[in-house]
């Protein structure tokens, strides 16, 4: 009976010792927005997005100019052209179509932003996991809004940005 108690006491001691060991898990932090703002690939993604938006803008502008030219022509000939009402209606439909195009363009810009941001963050994620494993982090938080304070030693954002920058300019391995 006393052996049983001794074994039980030993188990309790072991369990008590194990608790602090588990509590030592390191928590780190990665700021995703900084990765996008400060890494080379993040900056390239911002430039890509800006060019994409410019291209959309160029397309819309061209179409708007075409419609405006048509409208001007119609105004000039409205008094003499018997077909003017039909042309007016066609022009109205074109304006409607243009409004829809503007909405679609805005939507596509938003989707392109998400695609590029996701691409960059996937790469950053792969780097983050390696750094976390190397440095013994058990959890990496990525939501800055959920954090009141973080010590500099737990913030691996700079490391991830640096590693990402290094990897992004390194040539890929030669294929066999």
């Amino acid at each position, binding site marked *: 009976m006393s052996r049983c108690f001794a074994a039980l006491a030993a188990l309790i001691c072991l369990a008590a010792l194990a608790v602090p060991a588990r509590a030592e898990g390191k928590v780190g932090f990665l*700021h995703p927005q900084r990765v996008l703002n400060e890494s080379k690939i993040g900056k390239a993604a911002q430039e890509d997005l800006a060019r994409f938006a410019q291209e959309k803008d160029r397309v819309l502008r061209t179409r708007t100019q075409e419609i405006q030219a048509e409208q001007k022509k119609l105004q000039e000939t409205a008094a003499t052209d018997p077909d003017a009402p039909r042309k007016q209606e066609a022009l109205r439909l074109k304006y409607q179509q243009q409004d829809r195009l503007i909405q679609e363009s805005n939507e596509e810009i938003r989707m392109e932003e998400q695609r590029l941001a996701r691409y960059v963050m996937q790469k950053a994620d792969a780097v983050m996991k390696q750094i976390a494993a190397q440095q013994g982090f058990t959890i990496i938080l990525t939501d800055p*809004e959920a954090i009141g304070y973080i010590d500099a*030693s737990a*913030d691996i954002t700079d490391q991830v940005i640096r590693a990402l920058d290094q990897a992004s300019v390194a040539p890929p391995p030669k294929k066999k």
Partner: protein
Amino acid sequence: MIRAALRAALLALLLAAPALAQEWGELATPASPVNLRQARDLKSASRDVLMPGEIVRVDFLEDGWYAVFRPNIKVRDESKAIGYVRAGFMRPAPAKAAAPAAKTAPVSTPAVPAPAKAVPPPAMAPREPRLEPVAPPAALTQPQAWGRVLSLKQRVDLSRRPSKYAGQVRSLEAGAWVRVDFLDQGWYAVFSPEEPVRDLAKAWGYAPAEAIDGPSAAPAAPQPAAEASEPEPESETPAPLPAAAPPAASAAPAPAAPAMSLPPKVQAAVPASARPVTVASPFVQRNPEIPVGDKTLHGFRYAVLDTDEEQGNGVSVIEVKVYLDVTVLPEREAIRDFATSVWREKRQGGRELVVDVFLPDTDLKGLPYAVGRFDDSGLQEFFTRRTLLFGTRFAR
């Protein structure tokens, strides 16, 4: 007595069941017209279009996509979903609209749009980083925004006061991390790198500026208090000055002389940002697909990876994925001309055509490097993604 109580409890449970069954997901409405797709994929076919004001129940958020249900569905079962929608487009349904809509609104019938004056509810989608620059919270980027944190380039003996005759309090080995501030007459006050408070009373000791910044450091000239700890070019982690002026150096009590080497806590307090990092490139693909260009067009060897056709907004769109077998990055104009040549070969009357151009070392199942959109009259838009060149042979 017990039976009666049990019966009452059972009855209460039964009455509560329908209410409990509804307690899942969230009633939501799109912010703008949005496609309801067959799968969590932008390329999957669109089943319907959800209009603003149309109330649906959303749940099973995965990869930024919600499964969409009719609002009156009681059982949380993904197989009953009527489609999928990007989470970023959905907003919580207004409280007033949600209650009746949950009972009546069929998904295919657009409901009355929410009143324009209603305060826009916060986005339901999880916060995602944006490509548009957003300043990170200062509390996170500058947790201890004072002085400079640096690694010593040489062994440094700290003095009790800013004078070489004041007596030594401790020695720090080369490579040790410290925070320095209060530069005055060529002497820095030296702190623990983790020290949160800019207070001379917390200083470990004092070190000559030459010992911290190297022999090329500025001569020991008295500086105004406000400029005392201005970040210098070689600073490892420059931090802005706090608004408060430093207290007088003479008021600082010297810390008790500790051991000669740094305590383990300080050694471990090296900021994570300064540690050397070696990681495998995230750009290298595990089993890259390497097609061989078996055709030649516009001076390029290329291979057609895939041709697909889908309906969008009542227009048929043909998507042609092309692999350019090149060793040098072609000019943007050259790719645009190549895409135009592909369009000439593949175009069909009344259909739009999208040419996706992939380059070697890029993920052929991911985003294309260049995209050209054509209609019957020719090229409508063309863009490239330089982001995709990182980690490839074309990276500069």
